[in-house]
């Protein structure tokens, strides 16, 4: 869509000054703002992030301390959401666990995008033999069952937060690489890329400054959504017992409390709702971004 599309016909603007052309990111925001579910998602996400950042300093109960009778139901003590099987405060766990969960989700997603975009960009830009080799590597990682492979990596190299984020990144980048490659293949044949090349732009400039910004819109959507899937992935790993022993995450809370579900359903219910709300909010924002960036694909 070109900028001129947004200006009204000449007759309507006669006598008035022409409206300023709207920048693309502003256009996206305007579209995004009209999408109610996406705005709700953004609000929930914002609230969760704020709670995770400042929550622990406002609500100072430690998630590790045994503060009350084990398995106390919600609302029956000063600890609002009740306690877990060790008598630890669930609300404190949720507030502190958010930090861990979101940090891992975010860093794993950054890694996913970094690996995926690099491999996809190189393959799509250079083509030929480089493309061939890189796509074989991608295929190889696609064949590896991702959860099992991440389980192996985390088990062999101790479950620290960094190792978990790396494991998730390593198993998740392939679809990003394929998407980036497809975008690069399409864009590198565009006239403006040829024009840049003809005035002597080097490969690095073409990749970073010319093609990547134009390939960015779909990649931004993928990046947003991959935070959500990384959070689910982390939850799955810690549910299986592969979590950092020094950090309390939502997934680990579910895993820890699972043997006691017959006595305390709240121990698994609340952390699950927290994960669900966070990932749902991210999905809503991602879908909203997708609609705003590609208005033609709406309602699919």
């Amino acid at each position, binding site marked *: 869509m070109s900028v001129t599309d947004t200006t009204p016909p000449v007759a309507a603007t006669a006598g008035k000054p022409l409206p300023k052309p709207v920048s693309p990111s502003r256009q996206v925001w305007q579209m995004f703002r009209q999408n109610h579910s996406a705005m709700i998602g953004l609000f929930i996400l914002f609230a969760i992030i704020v709670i995770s950042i400042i929550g622990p300093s406002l609500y100072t109960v430690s998630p590790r301390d045994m503060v009350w009778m084990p398995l106390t139901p919600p609302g029956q003590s000063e600890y609002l959401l009740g306690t877990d099987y060790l008598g630890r405060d669930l609300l404190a766990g949720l507030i502190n666990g958010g930090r861990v969960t979101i940090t891992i989700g975010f860093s794993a997603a950054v890694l996913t995008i970094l690996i995926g975009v690099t491999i996809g960009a190189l393959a799509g830009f250079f083509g030929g033999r480089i493309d061939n080799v890189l796509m074989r590597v991608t295929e190889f990682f696609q*064949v590896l069952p991702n959860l099992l492979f991440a*389980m192996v990596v985390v088990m062999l190299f101790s479950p620290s937060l960094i190792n978990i984020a790396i494991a998730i990144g390593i198993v998740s980048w392939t679809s990003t690489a394929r998407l980036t490659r497809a975008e690069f293949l399409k864009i590198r044949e565009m006239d403006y890329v040829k024009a840049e090349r003809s005035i002597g732009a080097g490969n690095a400039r073409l990749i970073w400054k010319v093609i990547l910004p134009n390939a960015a819109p779909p990649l931004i959507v993928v990046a947003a959504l991959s935070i959500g899937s990384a959070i689910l992935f982390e939850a799955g790993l810690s*549910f299986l017992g592969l979590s950092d022993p020094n950090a309390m995450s939502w997934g680990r809370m579910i895993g820890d409390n699972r043997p006691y579900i017959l006595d305390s359903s709240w121990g698994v219910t609340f952390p699950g709702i927290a994960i669900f709300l966070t990932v*749902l909010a991210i999905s809503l924002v991602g879908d909203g971004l997708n609609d705003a960036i590609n208005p033609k694909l709406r309602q699919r």
Partner: protein
Amino acid sequence: MLTGLLRKLANAVLLLFAVLVLNFALIHIAPGDPVEALVGEMGGATPELIAELRESFGLDQPLYVQIGHYLGRVLQGDLGYSTYYDQPVTHLIAERIGPTLLLVTVALLWAIVIGTILGVFSAQRRNSWISHLVTVLSLAGFSAPVFWIGIMLILLLSVAYPILPISGMTSTETATSTIGYILDVAHHLVLPALTLGLIYLAFYSRLSRTSMLEVLETDYVRTARAKGLPKRLVIYKHALRNAVLPVVTFAGLQFGQVISGAVLVETVFAWPGLGTLAFESILRRDTPTLLGILFFSALMVVVMNLLTDVIYRRIDPRIKAT
């Protein structure tokens, strides 16, 4: 077509070879020496005994010799020994593969059938309640952790309304007759298959809706409508057949990922399949078993990808040209 398949086959063999090399490399890169661990368990040993152990495991050989031996063993169907069960890993896998296949087949089947129906209906009426249901389903299915859905279903259907068993594949007291056994397994299968299927349902309802929307806009559907064919005929004969193509492809590809997909659900319901075995291997730090399952899963993925390719060529003649 044959040369295309042959090339894919060669590629598949190469991929599996790469998985084996990766498996081997992981064991060696990972911190922790198996002999030292063993000696630690025995409560110490003389340097001579340690050297002897190293030799008996072949760990004194250069790496390329070790990897050669490893590949040779795998080719003979030997995936190593479980350090916990003291049994060949292939035996363990053979024991556990049945329940996993049963669970995933049932889950995928109901999800694909219901998902396609929902997707096709919602594509025809974009603002109907079915269409909104598909949107909500796919959002919820993508956002909730599958193991948590499983636990919530247990709390609902085994604890609050105890109509389904909490875990396992059979009850100990029944299983007197074959039919009784089948019914017992089916009774235990409902919850895990429902849980796993919900995730697939989210995916397939969305996929088939997208696909159907695309097909409904094609020229041949417009032609069929323009020449006055009844709507039902257009939808089911012309559109649906083409719209299910991506569903078939993804079903094949996902079936290859069975074990990975089933790990969490099997663990929640203590379903005695490969997923639970993988989970137990983590608890027991049983590396050979876990790596064996990883290789076996990769093998399944590769085989299913090949099969999907063959089926796809059959049902979509356009592929043959390329």
